[in-house]
């Protein structure tokens, strides 16, 4: 069917400034639990949504310079691999599972954690570190990824993300 419109049909890219804000709390340090937050943060930024990511507890491994490039994936306790749980405990299994997952992710052209964080920052995203996690692990800004804006308290984060949609991972 052919219809000729009198007004040009132009995609609506929304108003010039959306007031939508997304807050993501990363509390896990496993490789497979790092990606959902990174992918969603990246997607939100690409849609013009202001995005803040807060790293707390094990999520600190994603921004700790010592660990961020070396997150791991284990079959243990993860029945979704559909492999016998006993296998996961064998020596070398975590390394192998991690290698496989990293390869699958790289094959899709998706970057590793540090590079992904850089892409998020380049897209206008904000990274925040949790004060209590920093204190517990005796870490300072020097130990954290350079693009982390600051170490802030939980209440500071709640204040910064007033009115935001929130995602806890």
């Amino acid at each position, binding site marked *: 069917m*052919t219809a000729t419109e009198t007004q*040009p*049909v*132009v*995609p609506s890219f929304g108003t010039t400034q959306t007031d939508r804000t997304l807050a993501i709390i990363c509390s896990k340090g496993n490789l497979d639990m790092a990606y959902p937050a990174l992918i969603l943060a990246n997607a939100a930024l*690409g*849609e*013009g949504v202001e995005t803040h990511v807060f790293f707390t507890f094990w999520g600190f491994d994603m921004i700790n310079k010592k660990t961020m490039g070396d997150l791991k994936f284990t079959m243990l306790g993860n029945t979704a691999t559909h492999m016998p749980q006993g296998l996961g405990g064998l020596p070398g299994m975590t390394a192998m599972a991690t290698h496989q997952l990293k390869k699958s992710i790289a094959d899709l052209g998706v970057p590793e954690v540090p590079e992904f964080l850089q*892409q998020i920052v*380049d897209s206008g995203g904000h990274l925040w570190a949790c004060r209590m996690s920093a204190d517990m692990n005796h870490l300072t800004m020097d130990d954290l990824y350079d693009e982390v804006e600051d170490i802030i308290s939980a209440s500071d984060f709640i204040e910064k993300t007033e009115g935001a949609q929130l995602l806890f991972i």
Partner: protein
Amino acid sequence: MPTTTIDGHEIHVNEEGFLTDPTEWSEPLAKSLAAQIGIELTDEHWQAIRFLREDFAKEGETPTLRRISVVGGIPTKTLFQLFPQKPAKKLAYVAGLPKPHGCV
């Protein structure tokens, strides 16, 4: 499939307004499409648009922002400056291509 006329260019579009036939695209049309979404094209815009056209011709799909920066060599920050708020979709629109399907 509806048609629409933009600046005297008659084009086939989907319900959102994206071109459905990439061969109907031309450089003068790109200028008109960009103007519709409030963008005036500079050399930097053209560099990105040409990469999209070439990459689509080779790969058969619209590159994601990640691919434009890694393969096309245009930094992510620049893309957000050139095509504010929704760079991937705006760029695809001006280049006469479908929205990118990839997540990253």
